[in-house]
């Protein structure tokens, strides 16, 4: 760890910022508004919380980008820390999905629980056709994994146009996936209130869909930043974070596809 001349250490000492506080206000509004809404109140507080949250995200990350681009505050050791933070965040996300997979297997494998359904899918549930829309979505996400890697290589080679189109294409594929997922929800033979199969199905795939949405937005921002010339072959932590997040979303889908769509409809007897 080399030290710099002026500061005597390579670390980034941030300025005070309003965003942590506004973020908390957003959390408080979301929680209070959420409870109010769920108990038949108006949705305004919830929506206000969402608005404050979006402003916070925008402001906070705008500041971070500025510090990187304008102040050159992200020295190599700081970048190393940022990457580490992202990896750890993804690890915590993995554990979040772990809970939903646990619920799923707890309901579907009798060896794990006395309360598990003797057949899976449970009697009366008509699952989705694995090899139709879900499989198409699998192909779309896998392709998007390839395009994001293409964009990464383009950044490493310093080719901005190719990087931009690679990232843009990934974003579009992400939103295409979401559209098809919404279509699938609209045409499924079961709603969220139809017992344990639909509970696990909608929460697991729904949270995955939400993560696809977040990842696609993240990539869209990266595409804009590529166009503004932010990323260099040596410094593109933001893009790396988005790409890692995207791969994580991809892998979760593979597990969902295998366990929920494919294995989960295997025992279906017409």
């Amino acid at each position, binding site marked *: *760890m080399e*030290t710099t001349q002026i*500061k*005597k*250490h390579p*670390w980034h*000492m*941030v300025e005070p*910022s309003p*965003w*942590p*506080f506004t*973020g*908390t*206000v957003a*959390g*408080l509004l979301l*929680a*209070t508004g*959420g*409870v*109010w809404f*769920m*108990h038949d109140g108006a949705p305004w507080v919830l929506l206000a919380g969402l608005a404050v949250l979006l402003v916070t995200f925008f402001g*906070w990350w705008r500041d971070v980008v500025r510090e990187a681009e304008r102040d050159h505050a992200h020295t190599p*050791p700081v970048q190393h*820390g940022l990457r*580490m*933070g992202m990896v*750890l*965040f993804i*690890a*915590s*996300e*993995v*554990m*979040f999905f*772990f*809970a*939903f997979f*646990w*619920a799923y297997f*707890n*309901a579907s494998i009798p060896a794990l*629980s*006395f*309360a*598990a*359904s003797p057949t899976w899918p*449970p009697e009366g549930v008509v699952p989705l056709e694995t090899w139709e829309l879900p499989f198409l979505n699998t192909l779309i996400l896998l392709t998007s994994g390839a395009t994001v890697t293409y964009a990464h290589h383009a950044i490493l080679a310093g080719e901005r146009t190719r990087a931009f189109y690679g990232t843009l294409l990934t974003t579009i594929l992400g939103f295409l996936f979401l559209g098809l997922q919404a279509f699938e929800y609209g045409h499924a033979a079961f709603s*969220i*209130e*139809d*017992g*344990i*199969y*639909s*509970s696990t199905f*909608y*929460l697991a795939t729904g949270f995955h869909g939400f993560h696809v949405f977040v990842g696609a937005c993240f990539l869209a921002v990266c595409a804009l930043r590529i166009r503004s010339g932010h990323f260099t072959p040596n410094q593109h932590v933001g893009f790396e974070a988005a790409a890692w997040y995207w791969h994580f979303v991809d892998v979760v889908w593979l597990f969902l596809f295998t366990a929920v769509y494919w294995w989960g409809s295997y025992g279906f007897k017409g």
Partner: protein
Amino acid sequence: MYIVLSIVSALIGGGMSWIIRLELAEPGIQFIQDPQLYNVMVTAHGLIMVFFVVMPGLIGGFGNWFVPLMIGAPDMAFPRMNNISFWLLAAALCLLVTAGLTGTGPGTGWTFYPPLSNSTFHSGPAVDFGILSLHLAGASSILGAINFITTILNMRAPGMTMHRMPLFVWSMLVTAFLLLLAVPVLAGALTMLLTDRNFGTTFFAPEGGGDPVLWQHLFWFFGHPEVYIMIIPAFGIISQVVSTFSKKPVFGYLGMAYAMVAIGFIGFVVWAHHMYTVGLDVNTRAYFVLATMIIAVPTGIKIFSWLATMWGGSIEFKTPMLFATGFIALFVVGGVTGVVLANAGLDVQLQDTYYVIAHFHYVLSVAAVFALTTGFYYWIGKMSGRQYPETLGKIHFWLTFVGVNVLFFPQHFLGVAGMPRRIPDYPDAFAGWNMISSIGALITALGTLLFLFIVWRTMAAGKAAEPNPWGVGATTLEWSVPSPAPFHTHEELPRVSAQPAE
């Protein structure tokens, strides 16, 4: 700020326990007419003590302050994220208080077991507030954990290798990993409970093919690491203090560090020992008995290493050392009853009795809080620039030490005799020991009042603290900077070349 929040919460949570003890002082209903209110008290007491006293105090307070100091970094890796961790916790506390005041409140216990916590038995918004409060507190913990791990792995000063880090830093590293991996599982489970309550899913509802036991699995998969999240930072503080006041390096440094790693690791595979009575099959229970008992091995390593550190040392019983020694003694009591409870056969009898209450109050309410107090006396000079009054501190120790033992030790007898937890009334046969227990609560409360006086005395008229008030035993980096520690310490990174700093 974390420490202030922790103390304020401690007063709220402690006040509730005082009400509980008053109610239980004699058989018959004393003054809480509605048992639901009693249950709300119990729930809020548990949640506040766990999430808003012990965790912010040990992790948020001492961790954020001393981890950067001890590894020779100017600050944490992500200071803004640290800031939002704190604010989120404050917001979570607001939500929890709101939960308690809404409708009839959440009377579910801190574990939120369905079906009691579902929309049939708690139809009001109180439980939803409680769930979302824990969501925010959880987000705060996860962000904090990411911050700690990154800081410790990435920002150590030149020469501060992993095996030279003070044990408190090791303890925070292990704790942060536990938080990172355990808390999201709770978040998932809470989300399921929320949708069960409000959106018609049936994760925990048998009528829709769900399984109430699933909640217990998910909750305790988080909940067991959670108890180590609360105690491992305490191990870290005690290691520093014992070494400082024995004027010797910690005995078996590497063993101590990896014992914490082992405890953290095994902590993830023992969760079902909280669930011996839900109908697990006998082989599963046999496994969990064995795995649970194995934890006693690394814990024993720690206890014996502390004793070996003192052995032959030049021991000076300043207030922090008194509390640290008290911690070791009381943690052994709690640990031994833990081994008793690990046995599935015996636990079937003791589950949900005061024996369990006594067990976890010895390890948490007594041991973890003793560690908090130890940390307060040990580091207050460094944090505020003022030293506490020594004699009053010693009186505080003896009052508390006697008080908590009178308070909690009789509860073992009550539990073995079969007194169940979470009820405001009990048969006359349990009267005697309950009265003694409540007297213990009185003594402890006096100790707490004295502590508040000491805090005020220290801030108002404490002697100015030197950079190192403890002498040659205090070898870690925080004692090399002025007291109070400057805003960004170590502007010039220190170089570490010695053997393990402790």
